[in-house]
């Protein structure tokens, strides 16, 4: 059996299992709390795994391993930002959100403010961030199938995007949060298992001596010791000062973005209490941290055993580094058959990874559309639970269909910057609004709306006029040049600006509601009146 056939078989087994789960979950999904929050009945450990499954995208798995394999140490900078970010979520956001919100990020903001403008802003921001992230994953799926299954025609890639999109729509529309969460749990276990297996084999090959692995990687890369140091990709000496400031800007967006990502925030609602939300983040930090340590070995292992040249020849961005490593190490230990099996395994895991992440994103954006925009803005709260859930399912379908279309249109474009942009928007708009509303008594409607739009718009404008969109050989529009902002990452400007807009909007408006602040402060810290788990 060829590796392609085996990978397809393994992947179809994953699809069959997850469709079974979805069918089971659909029979348990009756109320709005079931659809949006999985009945709030997941344990801390389960939700922690799902957090890992939601967060560890193909970009982190294949992308970071690829960056390390090609450019060395700099991929590790990405991992560290992604991990440290979880402390912001743990210390300042997770428990308080669980105690004071219901289904979406906007619930916390709308608590003590004029609901319609605030929900509109939060809904727009949620859908924008999720679609950016979703689009990056969809285009990635098309590229991945080309590399792993040997599908190179544009129509073959388009068909893959349609397939991934269709599965994601089925998971979300029928399984709701319960189905999506279980898909993410299964994926997290497979991904951790696959990455751990390859890591142990790679380390075993080097006699469990990290230093000799690093030495071999540096030698094979052709870059020597510089391969083990920062500066191979971000803020290279050739890019000068702007490149180094860009690196800091990226670091800021990574570390502050996570706690403002809507698809991450809604995960805190799936557990019964704030203590379980805390436990989920602790589990999440453990899983994600270990995963990034494994990725480090995978990246350097690929450089050492496959070689940077062979990796770059297969894919310029290095996205096939991990699968190629799996094949090479399998061959070393178990012969040709072993190589085929491990390559197929990692390929199937990569697809499972994409599916779980896109499902989480579709759920977050459709929940926000139905709960924030439809139920509270258009219908002013006069809507039955049944109708709201129906609208959520329809919007999941529509958002899924739109992202399939955009994914096909953007095929072959360099859209990797969209992930970093999603983090920048989340850090610049959503995070200030959330933190101010949880901790600042004086904060008000004008402040929340200014923070969200200020952060969102400034991040978008800066990126549109940056080298990632025009005026550079790797830009989205190579032939045009309307770039005036020198950095690829807007965070260093847009994050402070978002916080500033939130402050300015607040002090320029007279509105403030002391008794509502008393309520949210007491509720967020003690859990009084927090939404309970539903029983079946």
């Amino acid at each position: 059996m060829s590796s392609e056939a085996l990978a397809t078989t393994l992947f179809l087994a994953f699809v069959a299992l997850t469709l079974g789960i979805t069918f089971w979950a659909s029979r348990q999904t009756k109320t709005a709390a079931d659809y949006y929050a999985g009945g709030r009945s997941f344990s801390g450990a389960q939700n922690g795994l799902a957090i890992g499954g939601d967060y560890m995208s193909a970009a982190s798995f294949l992308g970071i391993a690829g960056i390390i394999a090609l450019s060395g140490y700099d991929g590790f900078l990405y991992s560290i930002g992604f991990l440290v970010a979880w402390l912001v979520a743990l210390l300042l956001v997770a428990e308080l959100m669980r105690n004071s919100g219901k289904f979406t990020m906007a619930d916390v903001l709308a608590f003590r403010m004029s609901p319609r403008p605030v929900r509109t802003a939060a809904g727009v921001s949620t859908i924008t961030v999720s679609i950016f992230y979703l689009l990056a994953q969809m285009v990635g799926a098309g590229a991945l199938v080309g590399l792993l299954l040997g599908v190179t025609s544009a129509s073959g890639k388009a068909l893959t995007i349609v397939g991934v999109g269709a599965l994601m729509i089925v998971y979300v529309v029928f399984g709701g949060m319960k189905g999506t969460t279980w898909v993410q749990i299964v994926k997290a276990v497979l991904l951790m298992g696959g990455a751990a297996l390859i890591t142990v084999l790679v380390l075993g090959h080097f006699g469990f001596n990290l230093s000799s692995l690093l030495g071999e990687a540096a030698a094979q890369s052709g870059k020597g010791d510089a391969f083990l140091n920062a500066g191979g990709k971000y803020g290279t000496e050739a890019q000068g000062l702007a490149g180094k400031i860009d690196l800091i800007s990226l670091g800021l967006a990574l570390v502050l973005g996570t706690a403002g990502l809507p698809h991450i925030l809604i995960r805190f609602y799936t557990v019964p209490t704030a203590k379980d939300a805390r436990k989920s983040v602790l589990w999440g930090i453990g899983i994600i941290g270990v995963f990034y340590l494994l990725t480090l070995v995978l990246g350097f292992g690929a450089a050492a055993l496959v070689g940077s040249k062979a990796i770059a020849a297969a894919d310029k961005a290095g996205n096939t580094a991990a699968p190629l490593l799996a094949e090479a190490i399998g061959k070393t230990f178990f012969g040709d058959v072993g190589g085929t099996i491990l390559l197929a395994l990692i390929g199937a895991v990569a697809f499972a990874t994409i599916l779980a992440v896109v499902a989480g994103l579709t759920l977050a954006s459709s929940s926000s559309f139905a709960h924030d925009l439809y139920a509270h803005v258009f219908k002013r709260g006069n809507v039955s639970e049944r109708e709201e859930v129906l609208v959520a399912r329809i919007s999941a379908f529509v958002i899924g269909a739109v992202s399939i279309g955009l994914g096909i249109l953007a095929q072959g474009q360099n859209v990797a910057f969209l992930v970093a942009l999603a983090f920048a928007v989340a850090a610049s708009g959503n995070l200030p609004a959330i933190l101010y509303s949880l901790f600042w008594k004086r904060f008000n409607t004008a402040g929340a709306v200014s923070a969200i739009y200020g952060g969102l718009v400034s991040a978008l404008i800066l990126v549109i006029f940056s080298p990632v969109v025009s005026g550079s050989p790797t830009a989205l529009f190579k032939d045009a040049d309307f770039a005036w902002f020198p950095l690829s990452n807007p965070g260093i400007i847009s994050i402070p600006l978002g916080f500033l807009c939130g402050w300015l909007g607040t002090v320029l408006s007279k509105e403030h509601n002391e008794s509502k602040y008393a309520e949210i402060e007491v509720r967020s810290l003690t859990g009084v009146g927090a939404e309970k788990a539903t029983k079946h």
Partner: protein
Amino acid sequence: MTTQEHDASVYEQVQASSEFQDLKRRFRRWTFPMTVAFLTWYLLYVVLSGFARDFMGIKLFGNVNVALVFGLLQFVSTFSIAWAYARHAEKKLDPIADKLRHEVEEKTR
């Protein structure tokens, strides 16, 4: 219950109570400085990665250099802070939060 007060005023009473103020202080005094600390520590790492590459490239043992050790220390500090917060919350925050929650739920019943 002798008085049937509006919910909001119950919340204001709790907010004004010394127990709640104690809970809020214990929460903020731990999490705010810690947030500043880990963000500073992380930014130091990023800035060194950008501007102090000769220092980051110094080999400590074998092929393991300062950059790698610094990176791994970020993992160690993240795991440690998460663990320390869980302990702090369990011992210092949860008991007061649970007691206040029961009291308010009695009052608003």
